[in-house]
């Protein structure tokens, strides 16, 4: 039973604000947002930062949710409907981490999109956003590849990601978004 204490201490040391592993439904997204909004109100004095973190969370969670809704597959026991969410904070930044299983054949396309976003300037990101907003193809629910661009714009940071091979057909996709605390990023 002492494992749990170790786990707790580890979570405490990493300043984990919230962690979740399981199926991501829209109701869950709403619950997480509500909890996080209250916590941010308590611990984050800077309204701008609060909004940014909230915004990034909305997009990350709805991304996961949409991914899960379009994935009815279960590949060799790796459930594509469940995901990992960790929100951490320290004096410098908030860290939002999501992780989920994806089919390996999606890795290349996803990587290309993330790399494109990471390789262009703030102003180019803005132009790309506008272009997709005005001309882009949008899915049934309205998603249209704007999520990652929006996350990059709001956080002002590069998107950190990793694809880990699980087996021949499945990979684990981890995405980490840092949101700097205070206005240090721009002003």
């Amino acid at each position, binding site marked *: 039973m002492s494992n749990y204490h170790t786990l707790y201490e580890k979570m405490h040391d990493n300043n984990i604000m919230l962690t979740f592993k399981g199926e991501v439904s*829209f109701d869950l997204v*709403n619950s997480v*947002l*509500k909890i996080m909004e209250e916590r941010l109100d308590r611990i984050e004095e800077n*309204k*701008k930062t609060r*909004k*940014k973190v*909230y*915004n990034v969370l*909305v*997009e990350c969670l*709805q991304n996961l*949710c949409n991914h899960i809704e379009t994935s009815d597959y279960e590949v060799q026991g790796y459930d594509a409907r469940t995901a990992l969410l960790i929100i951490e904070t320290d004096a410098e930044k908030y860290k939002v981490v999501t992780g989920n299983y994806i089919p390996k054949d999606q890795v290349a396309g996803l990587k290309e999109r993330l790399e494109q976003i990471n390789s262009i300037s703030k102003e180019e990101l*803005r132009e790309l*956003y*506008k272009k997709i*907003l*005005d001309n*882009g193809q*949008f899915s*049934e*629910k*309205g*998603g*249209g590849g*704007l*999520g990652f*661009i*929006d996350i990059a*714009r*709001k956080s002002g940071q590069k998107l950190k990601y990793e694809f880990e091979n699980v087996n021949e057909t499945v990979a684990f996709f981890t995405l980490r978004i840092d949101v700097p605390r205070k206005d240090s990023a*721009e002003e």
Partner: protein
Amino acid sequence: METLELQAKNNTPYINFDASTGIMVMKGRSTPENSVEYYEPITNWVLNYIQSPAENTIIKVQFEYFNTSSSKCILDVLKKFAEIHKAGKSAKVEWYFEEDDEDMKEAGEDYGDIVKMPFEVIEIPE
């Protein structure tokens, strides 16, 4: 034409579109699960309205947050309103953002670049 009024909820904004005064208000948060479904009746109302709009139409937009899936729907609503301006009648957007909210200011400027009608981005002092 009846006024379209929708109360704000946790994920959806307050909407008050008044055909008699020409004042259209969208305010609050927009992060619905299904943006397309949520905005459909709103877009339909606007389609009707632009057939015979008020003398002056002012669209007052004041979002706190909106998600990317709402962003396209919001653009569609504004583009429909822009038809009024295209037809030679008076219509403009007033896009409000809270002081220091650079993100919402930029969003307003982005929409202003895309939508072809008078578009004002206005700071609300704290």
